[in-house]
């Protein structure tokens, strides 16, 4: 009975692993490493890579810059309507990306909510690189928010109190205590958000279009090449998997290093007098 149950668990794990890894393996089996590099010489792939890196970098930096202090406020303060704010911030998580694209249009489009104001400033957003940045930031920010709030909440409130009695201003408490102690969680949230942003498709194609060299990011390029040149689509996909795997490994490595330092201190020779 016991052995049978153990076997069921093992089989379930084997099926899950096979299902998740087979498609990934299929890409690499179809694309030899040499072809992969050739494909990257392809204009479409190179342009898409540049657009993706540029827009993701700007979007991600903005999310970190605004999201970190906002998450700190939400983690530390208890106020009326806090629950509502937390829910609203997570709304993009449950929105289908296509809906996000339409929503961005409704806000920043020519005929949108801020259309007249933007027009008066001579700014046009849809179908520009700015639109890609907005779409990516909109979709990835809840991932960062969730993780960052949890990271700040896990910082011992007693340490914050201690810092304040030592004369530290709120800004210094944030910089010297909260930020370094939440760094691990913030890093994890940042990596997750970055990965989500790089893969953004639905909101971008609706709000920014798919113009090679301007708004065509890597996922959009894959979609475009899928019909015309399947091999290039495969090569870009393979590139994506490599970038994703590197992000994941970096994340695990960081976690391991942190865990490792705790481990070392546990087994450090005792210095007690």
């Amino acid at each position, binding site marked *: 009975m016991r052995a049978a149950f153990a076997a069921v668990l093992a089989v379930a794990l084997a099926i899950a692993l096979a299902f998740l890894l087979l498609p990934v393996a299929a890409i690499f089996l179809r694309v030899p490493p040499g072809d992969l590099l050739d494909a990257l010489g392809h204009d479409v792939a190179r342009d898409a890579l540049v657009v993706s890196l540029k827009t993701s970098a700007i979007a991600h930096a903005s999310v970190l810059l605004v999201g970190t202090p906002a998450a700190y406020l939400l983690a530390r303060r208890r106020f009326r309507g806090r629950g509502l704010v937390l829910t609203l911030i997570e709304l993009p998580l449950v929105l289908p990306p296509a809906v996000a694209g339409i929503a961005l249009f409704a806000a920043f489009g020519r005929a949108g909510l801020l259309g007249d104001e933007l027009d008066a400033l001579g700014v046009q957003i849809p179908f520009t690189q700015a639109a890609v940045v907005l779409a990516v930031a909109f979709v990835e920010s809840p991932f960062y928010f969730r993780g960052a709030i949890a990271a700040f909440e896990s910082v011992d409130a007693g340490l914050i109190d201690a810092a304040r*009695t030592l004369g530290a201003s709120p800004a210094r408490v944030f910089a010297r205590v909260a930020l370094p102690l939440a760094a691990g969680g913030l890093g994890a949230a940042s990596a997750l958000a970055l990965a989500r942003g790089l893969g953004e498709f639905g909101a971008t194609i609706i709000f920014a279009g798919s113009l090679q060299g301007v708004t065509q990011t890597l996922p959009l390029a894959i979609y475009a090449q899928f019909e015309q040149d399947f091999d290039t689509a495969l090569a870009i996909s393979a590139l994506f998997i490599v970038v994703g795997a590197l992000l994941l490994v970096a994340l695990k490595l960081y976690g391991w290093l942190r865990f490792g330092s705790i481990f070392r201190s546990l087994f450090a020779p005792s210095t007690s*007098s």
Partner: protein
Amino acid sequence: MAPLRIDLSLPLRAFDLELELEVGPETVALVGPSGAGKTSVLRSVAGLARPARGTIACGEDLWFDSARRIDRRPEQRSVGFVFQEYALFPHLSVEHNVTFGGGRAEGLLRRLRIEHLARAKPTELSGGERQRVALARALAREPRVLLLDEPMAALDPHTRGSVRAELHDLLRELALPTLLVTHDFEDAAALADRVGVVADGRLRQLGAPVDLLGSPADPLVARLAGANVLSGVAAPAGGGLTAVALDDGPTIYSADAARGRTEVVVYPWDVSLAREAPDDSALNHIRDEIASVTPLGNRARVRLRTLTAEVTTTSAERLKLSPGETIVASFKATQARLLARG
């Protein structure tokens, strides 16, 4: 050294804590059961909690005054706070912990004999070392008031004694207004010049440890101080003595005067034990069964059915005390203090 003056009302879960206290260049310990609001008092003084009303002042400096809507931020008050479990910054070295609020570390580290740990991280330290780092950090900004929240709670029982002696000497040397909070009367009595017993939102009694032991104001203070508190009915017995018929059976004699229901306070260390009732000057001999024997370092705590005695381990071994046996507990009439029912 400007005194710390506290007069506040703090809303707690079950009741409000009312406290009026002036702390000069001395150590005052607040003792009480957990949940009595002791930590809230320290947090109020530090500015980490806001009392419902009252005033907190250090000399002429008003830190809190509800009537005048004054409430200085923690960073604008001058307190050194040693937190329960010490709250050392885990990501900073000992030296950087101490200099977090400014100031220099070397002198303090040397004074507290932890200069060799300057580069160590808090997780690598023993409990006693952590306590000294927390003290050094609290003192680095030369505070005008020192607050200690359960400073002995995170220590191993076997290092407790020596750490307590060192802390006692340091507090004497500093001569800062120091407010210490603990649930342990022994720690309070060992560290503080004056001890205040807090329970049910009130300061029940405030005085030198000796006075609290000698004339506890009520049963709760006596129990916190470690005494046996026995209930009974008192009646004059001639010869200036009072006889108290205990609810548990035996009658005992006290040199204090009382009539009607009363409480008898007997300290365990005033009770001696013998196999047979000795023919001595003690008036009170209670034949009783041993419930348990607990060693406490060089002493043994012997719990009988009616009261608890504390004898040296040597005596306990000589008498071969073990649970279930019958023994005679003796104490003088002068060692049975009667509490007037208020």
